[in-house]
């Protein structure tokens, strides 16, 4: 808990970040950029978990643990996603989302 900063400020930051992620997710066509947008989203969610924990329930560590698990899952997700992306790239020599349709044989 930071003295003098209300919880809302944190939440606003994470909200904006979340929606920036969403916008990137919609706007971008490159798979890796999309992955990065997802990481942004996850990150903002993480901030929320931690903030709620810190501000509202400082007697427990639930949000903290949730955040850690989210990070772990994000890592697992990223590794599989990257494996997929590179595999797609090796097949199509291109990693734009549109082209991924071609993957449906």
């Amino acid at each position, binding site marked *: 808990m930071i003295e003098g900063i209300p919880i809302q400020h944190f939440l606003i930051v994470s909200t904006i970040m979340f929606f920036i992620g969403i916008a990137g997710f919609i706007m971008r066509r490159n798979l890796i950029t999309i992955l990065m947008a997802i990481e942004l989203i996850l990150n903002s969610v993480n901030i929320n978990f931690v903030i709620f924990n810190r501000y509202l329930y400082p007697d427990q560590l639930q949000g903290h643990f949730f955040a850690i698990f989210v*990070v*772990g899952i994000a890592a*697992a997700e990223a590794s599989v996603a990257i494996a997929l992306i590179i595999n797609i790239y090796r097949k199509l020599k291109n990693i734009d989302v549109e082209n991924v349709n071609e993957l449906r044989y």
Partner: protein
Amino acid sequence: MESQSLILFFVIALVLVGGAIAFSMLIAPSSFNPAKSEPYECGIPTEGPAWIQFNVGYYLFAIIYLIFDVETVFLFPWGVVMKQIGMRAFIEIIIFFFVLGLGLLYAWKKRALKWV
């Protein structure tokens, strides 16, 4: 105090690198010739772009690394309390390791750890 010192070190590093580079840029002599800003390749003009289509080798290790890194993260809290909890922690970690060992074994058997 701690986070403040962290910022401090960050700033020191910035000042050190930035200051030195700025200083150097200001006073170092310079000359121009067309070959100078070309990439170096043993004195021969480069052909083609500097870009390799790497095979799976490099990134597969990065992927497996990431997964093991997650594991390390979870191991550290365990390590701290291992002494206090004792037997139960030991069993828990044996299970944890067993599952991960399976993963490593799988990668090994699948020759994912072999450089291609």
